[in-house]
């Protein structure tokens, strides 16, 4: 741990130092502003505490930015320098081997010596690495304090009676607000680029058509050339079918139960029943998925298996049915709260009209409220479907790994999310088709859920607007 730890402690220490300096600068700024007008604050353009904020920002703002950029980049730059310094014979290898090499060096530096072939070159590289790191860190400390001093002083000296400190501080705040709100865009862009980039290199190895239309999935690629039985087939159809099968089972559980309970709670239930039943239903939404997974794997799956055996059915121990049923329970509150919203959005006048014509309450609901709410309900179901498709832990724990192309809910199937987890949590070979396949699956998953969400949100919004007019 030593070096990395020490350094992170060091950077935390540096950060704390900056915060203390910022606080001191704040106090000094306030003092100076009051002193400038000898206490008659009304003569200042900005209130004293704005002068304080201004000095603090001037002191630590630029330094913070430098610190952040430096810390995020120096690791890779140093590693490049170290690798560049290694003898030619060690570096003219594949990317994967170089990454292994880097790992060896890091492990050595961090003191967890499990690294195997410790050649003198690697030991030397490790020394170089830790030397570079400490140099980099000393330099960083120096640069940070120099910037703090320089900018802090110039900010402090610039304070005057007419100083538009409030405007400067507000401009900075505005910048922070805008930056924060654009983070959502950057996250989306980051997701798209990270999965797209790796997917493209995957499709360089495995043709796109084979991936999308192939019916054979066995991602074990041969480690050695003479290995048998690990051809590596990347036809994702069985995964798509498995995902859809489990999601379909989940929806057949969740939609009727969720919808009917939403109808009952919003149309029939008394205020008291509602206030008890609704929070109880919401509990289902708050339970972590890993708990559902445990419940599905250890309670529901054996139950279904025993029941199946007792009536002479052959049930796999990791059946799609178990995972689907439990996933259905998980999305019940999702369906019910979305339907509840849209049912409540149906104007009361429509109900009153139907009731006045002599319809019973259930007729009003089925023939008036329900058709009016249908687009919203469909939108909600689509959102629930996207939830089911993207759900990971339940299927990882309760559905299997066997990529069977089947529609039989009693068989074991596997899903897209299960495969992503298995491909990325096993012993990883860098840049193999196997790990890249996970990103290609991630891309498929992201696109599918994105399309479902966009359609669903669009429908729900349209529906709201229609009813409000």
């Amino acid at each position: 741990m030593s070096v990395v730890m020490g350094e992170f402690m060091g950077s935390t220490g540096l950060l704390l130092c900056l915060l203390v300096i910022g606080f001191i600068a704040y106090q000094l700024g306030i003092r100076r502003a009051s002193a400038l007008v000898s206490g008659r604050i009304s003569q200042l353009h900005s209130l004293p505490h704005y002068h304080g904020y201004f000095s603090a920002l001037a002191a630590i703002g630029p330094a913070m930015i430098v610190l952040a950029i430096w810390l995020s980049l120096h690791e890779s730059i140093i590693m490049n320098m170290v690798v560049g310094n290694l003898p030619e014979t060690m570096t003219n290898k594949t990317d994967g081997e170089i990454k292994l090499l880097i790992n060896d060096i890091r492990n050595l530096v961090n003191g967890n010596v499990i690294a195997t072939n410790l050649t003198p070159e690697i030991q030397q590289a490790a020394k170089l690495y830790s030397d570079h790191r400490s140099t980099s860190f000393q330099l960083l400390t120096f640069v940070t304090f120099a910037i703090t001093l320089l900018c802090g002083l110039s900010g402090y000296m610039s304070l005057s009676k007419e100083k538009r400190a409030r405007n400067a501080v507000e401009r900075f705040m505005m910048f922070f607000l805008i930056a924060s709100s654009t983070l959502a865009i950057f996250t989306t862009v980051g997701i798209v680029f990270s999965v797209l980039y790796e997917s493209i290199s995957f499709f360089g190895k495995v043709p796109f058509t084979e991936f999308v239309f192939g019916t054979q999935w066995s991602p074990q690629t041969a480690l050695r050339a003479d290995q048998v039985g690990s051809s590596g087939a990347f036809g994702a159809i069985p995964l798509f079918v498995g995902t859809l099968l489990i999601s379909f089972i989940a929806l057949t559980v969740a939609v009727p139960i969720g919808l009917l309970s939403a109808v009952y709670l919003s149309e029939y239930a008394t205020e008291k029943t509602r206030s008890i039943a609704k929070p109880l239903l919401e509990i289902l939404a708050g339970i972590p998925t890993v708990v559902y997974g445990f419940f599905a794997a250890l309670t529901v799956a054996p139950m279904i298996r025993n029941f199946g055996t007792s009536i002479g059915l052959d049930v796999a121990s990791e059946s799609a049915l178990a995972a689907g049923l439990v996933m259905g329970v998980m999305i019940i509150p999702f369906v019910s709260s979305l339907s509840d919203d849209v049912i409540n959005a149906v104007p009361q006048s429509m109900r009153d009209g139907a009731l006045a014509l002599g319809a019973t309450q259930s007729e009003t609901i089925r023939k008036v409220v329900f058709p009016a709410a249908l687009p919203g309900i469909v939108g909600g179901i689509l959102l629930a479907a996207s939830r089911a498709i993207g759900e990971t832990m339940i299927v990882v724990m309760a559905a299997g790994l066997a990529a069977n192309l089947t529609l039989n809910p009693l068989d074991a199937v596997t899903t897209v999310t299960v495969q992503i987890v298995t491909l990325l949590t096993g012993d990883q070979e860098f840049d193999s088709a196997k790990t890249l396949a996970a990103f290609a699956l991630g891309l498929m998953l992201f696109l599918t859920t994105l399309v479902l969400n966009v359609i669903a949100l669009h429908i729900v919004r349209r529906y709201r607007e229609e009813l409000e007019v």
Partner: protein
Amino acid sequence: MTEDNSTLSPNIPKRPRTIDVVRKNINKRNAAERRFQLYGKVAIALAISFVFILFFDIINKGKGAFVQSYIALDIYLDEQQIDPDGTRDPAVIADANYFGIIRSNLREMFPEVSSRQERRNLYSLVSSGASYQLADLVREHPEYIGNTFRLWVPADDDIDMLIKGYIDRNIPEDDRRIKDNQIAWIDKLNEEGRVKTQFNTTFFTAGDSRDAELAGILGALSGSFFTLIVTLLLSFPIGVAAAIYLEEFAPQNRLTDIIEVNINNLAAVPSIVFGLLGLAVFINFFALPRSAPLVGGLVLTLMTLPTIIISSRAALKSVPPAIREAAIGLGASKMQMVFNHVLPLALPGMLTGTIIGMAQALGETAPLLMIGMVAFIVDVPSSFTDPSTVLPVQIFLWADSPERAFVEKTSGAIMVLLAFLITMNAVAVFIRKKLERRW
């Protein structure tokens, strides 16, 4: 008139009166009404019964995790064996063969045991952690050397299951993990008062272990703690800032539209995709350490941001415009109006949303698997960059272990996790009820 009509055209059947139609169908319609209500009631009953079944099942499986069986050994610490020169040097004391002491102690208790197989069964009555426990004890209390004292050591996990009564003694010996002679020994020990079950402190003070009786959740809990700290420190200010901009300042233009669509979509992106993002960006590109709470916190920040932004916007929306107009009217700048007048009023709502977002982050597993927080880690992490795991991932890891004792530990860990979640949600509800102002 009507009679006339009917006589004029006898072929046209008489139109039934509406009231007759209604009367004829009313029973059917009322039955349909009752059926429909019944469906609703059944649906709610089903959904609620799932909640109870789930909780009952978990508690039933996990209640045993909070107690542990201990076996009493009367240990004689031979000075010749431990510290022959009488130096009381900690290094010498630590080097002694405590493993052998425990074993010979067990042999002395059951002198009739002779064959190798039987001995092995005998040794496996107590936990493999017993010798470390003894070593620690002697290091702290060197005065015990040369004396005999009674030491309660944890029973092995299978024996623990037997003592707690989870193992059926009637099934054939070959089908259970406990052998007949082990049962006999335990029964004898029990008669001698050498077996007890008491509160399992190890469960709350130890890190992970391959041995169920030595495994605890402290490592996972502190991993969760560090991860959530990172998440909270980043997502609360950023989420609130984004909400303030969108609700109070943003002009109606394309950029704002794009941001809004993005936030709504991110709220529905599967969590595992955020894990892929974390793996590709934070670990592969920025070379941040694997398995670290820092990276976990970053990923969970991106994941919880939409929740916090959406609830913070709702909180800002509920502040009446009069407050804003009054502040502006008194000469406040727009920024002053927001930060000095609107924000304090919206803060309780924002806090509620943040706590709920944090509860989600606490229960999240899938994205953390992607960034390597699934490793088997014994040490309790002590900083943001130590390799660590979090409570839900610990549950996932334990759920994979086939031993009966780990099922119990898993359920116990789930109970702890649920307790945290319930507390957080209760706090959120409390804040909403007590602090939020209705206008």
